[in-house]
């Protein structure tokens, strides 16, 4: 550190602004801030800092960026801020506000679940499926985990000039097959073609409606301490399959996407223990970890997961180790997470295991009271850590 800097210096304006925004106004800005005494017992001071952070996290989300970045589409914190600060802010209404996978709307005497999703997966074709069945299954699953019986879907296509018709045929055939398998019909649609280079081959949007017949009040906000967290099978298959299929990693594994319609799996669960189910979600972008964070935040509870109980295929675990990704964040397309009353947990697992898609179903953790809003993981090594919402994007365009 012997060299003085003689070059011109600038300041980072954005950083100074962020500091000002968060600092307590007034000359005694540091009053109440725990002072640092090296080597002293610090639990109390650390606790104060943690509380301050929680306050900062509860603050109204803002989108500071001037431009959309890939992080806004990654399903993590940036996506959440975008949804809450831009979309929810503009569209706010009681049906949208819970931000569930599908909205529950009442039409006449009927309760309907209504949802939509867009698909931009790259590559379009991958082991275990393609963008077509993904687009059908994804929307069917959003309806199913909302407790609805999926009924009708729409399909919108945005195609790039030069896209092979043969590929479109393959995609549409898969959609038809997936719709038949899920017992839904595609009843309306739309097509747009954009100039070469303005899209990447084929994007699909699907929307769907389903009938809610059980009279259940499902929602992540209803989770309460003691509830059991169940996943319906090994996690992360879809995300890692897509990643490997892109060939950027020079890794190979016998792995296929888990894309599948979960409506029958869900039906089996609801028929067995319906009133004991608090919430279900299908674990897509952001993986199981994102769902558990939604539970913790919406219900104001802690979720404690045991790493050793989370089912992960060895191939997925191996790829995740190499890439430095936690399989809990990796997308699935045919797995559900269910929050269930503890008294019904064993029956719920048994009901899921009775369906071919749920043979790997297992309880992975519990809802607890404290610390509210956090997901904790008991690591296989015997320690404890947080599983937070994802920041940044390990795997873009997986669905």
């Amino acid at each position, binding site marked *: 550190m012997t060299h003085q800097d003689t070059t011109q210096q*600038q300041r980072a304006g954005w950083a100074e602004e962020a500091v000002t925004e968060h600092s307590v106004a007034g000359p005694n800005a540091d009053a109440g801030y725990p002072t640092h005494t090296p080597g002293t017992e610090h639990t109390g001071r650390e606790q104060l800092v943690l509380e301050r952070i929680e306050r900062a996290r509860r603050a109204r989300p803002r989108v500071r960026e001037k431009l959309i970045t890939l992080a806004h589409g990654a399903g993590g914190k940036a996506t959440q801020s975008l949804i809450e600060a831009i979309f929810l802010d503009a569209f706010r209404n009681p049906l949208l506000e819970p931000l569930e996978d599908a909205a529950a709307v009442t039409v006449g005497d009927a309760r309907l679940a209504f949802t939509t999703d867009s698909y931009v997966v790259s590559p379009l074709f991958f082991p275990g499926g393609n963008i077509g069945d993904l687009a059908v299954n994804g929307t069917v699953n959003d309806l199913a985990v909302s407790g609805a019986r999926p009924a009708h879907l729409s399909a919108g296509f945005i195609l790039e000039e030069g896209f092979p018709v043969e590929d479109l045929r393959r995609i549409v055939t898969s959609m038809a097959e997936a719709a038949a398998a899920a017992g839904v019909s595609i009843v309306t649609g739309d097509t747009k073609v954009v100039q070469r280079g303005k899209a990447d081959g084929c994007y699909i949007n699907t929307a769907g409606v389903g009938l809610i017949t059980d009279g259940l009040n499902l929602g992540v906000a209803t989770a309460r301490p003691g509830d059991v967290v169940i996943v319906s099978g090994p996690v992360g298959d879809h995300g890692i399959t897509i990643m490997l299929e892109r060939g950027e990693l020079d890794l190979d594994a016998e792995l296929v996407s888990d894309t599948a319609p979960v409506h029958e799996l869900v039906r089996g669960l609801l028929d067995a223990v319906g009133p004991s189910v608090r919430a279900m979600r299908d674990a897509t972008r952001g993986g199981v970890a994102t769902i558990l964070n939604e539970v913790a935040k919406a219900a104001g509870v802690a979720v404690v997961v045991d790493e050793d109980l989370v089912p992960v295929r060895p191939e997925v675990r191996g790829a995740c180790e190499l890439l430095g990704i936690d399989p809990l964040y990796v997308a699935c397309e045919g797995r559900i997470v269910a929050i269930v009353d503890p008294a019904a947990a064993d029956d719920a697992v048994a009901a899921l295991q009775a369906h071919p898609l749920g043979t790997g179903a297992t309880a992975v953790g519990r809802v607890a009271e404290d610390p509210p809003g956090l997901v904790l993981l008991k690591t296989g090594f015997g320690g404890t850590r947080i599983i937070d919402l994802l920041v940044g994007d390990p795997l873009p365009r997986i669905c």
Partner: protein
Amino acid sequence: MRFVDEYRDAEKARALAAKIAALCEPGRHYKFMEVCGGHTHTIYKHGLEDYLPESISLVHGPGCPVCVLPMGRVDDAIALAEQPDVIMTSFGDMMRVPGGRGSFFDSSAAGTDIRMVYSPLDALKIARQNPDKRVIFMAIGMETTTPSTAMTVLRAAAEGIENFSIFCNHVMIVPAIKAILDSPDLRLDGFIGPGHVSTVIGCRPYEYIPAEYGKPIVTAGFEPLDILQSVYMLLQQLAEGRCEVENQYSRVVPWDGNTVALRAVAEVMELRPYFEWRGLGFISHSALQVREKYAAFDAERLFKLPGVRVADPKACQCGEVLKGVLKPWECKVFGTACTPEMPIGTCMVSSEGACAAYYNFGRFSRQRVREVSIESSRA
């Protein structure tokens, strides 16, 4: 999974933790610095502190190359990406690192062509595929990644690829450890040495630490049991009155390092007289630049760089965190103005940064959680 599970065995960890507790002198407080960000990540990811007695603190060191990159160099890199016909290539963890005017992600959103790669050889491939573009590799990292950059330059030279260059920001850990040892505001009892760096440079370069500064150092692997064992080895040295370099990671680290890799680095690169480390300031002979012989592959020579220094915001205490003077949560902007979504300091960016590791994995009261888990085990 083989070669992983055996190093994460909770049973063995408990046994080792008991041995560690037994070695601690009553009333004495121990401070060990894990130099490498990879270790910091492991410690938090596996909840390793749960196994350590309260009298042992692990202090997180400067061994995260992303964290020590000053903002001005990020601005320089973005200025390179803005040049006509340039494709900038970078490791993923560099993408969110903020400079004075934003990050690679922001720059990419504004229209530059910045691509993530997993290896510098991937960047060279992009150069081959795009002969009409100028492809630059954002070379960052400590001794661990330097050889792969050097080998890539050698391959580009051998193949006569003319549209490829590197923006060299490679730094060296040994001068940084020395700077920390020379820093007056820190009392350490020993070092957990960087395992990956040591696979390249071996253990010899650390011999000055016990010899001149009287501190033990144990080069450690990256699984949680590796780190626990290295803590145990450090305590053993202290208990037995020894002070030396030991190699816990001998399954990977040869004592003399990887001579082939070192030769490649020496062929392509040379020491800079000094280099700025974010938070630590200018450190003499602590970084590498491309030799004149390979000037054709040196983005610093090929392009004009702004080279403007950007001062860290006053509130940012990355320097103290990097030197281990402050715990991440003791920084005044930690978790409020500075979060992983909007990092002011680089320690909050990379998953190997001490602040990001603490924020993402350790942001809870261990005491409260212990009480909770005792309650739930009773229930």
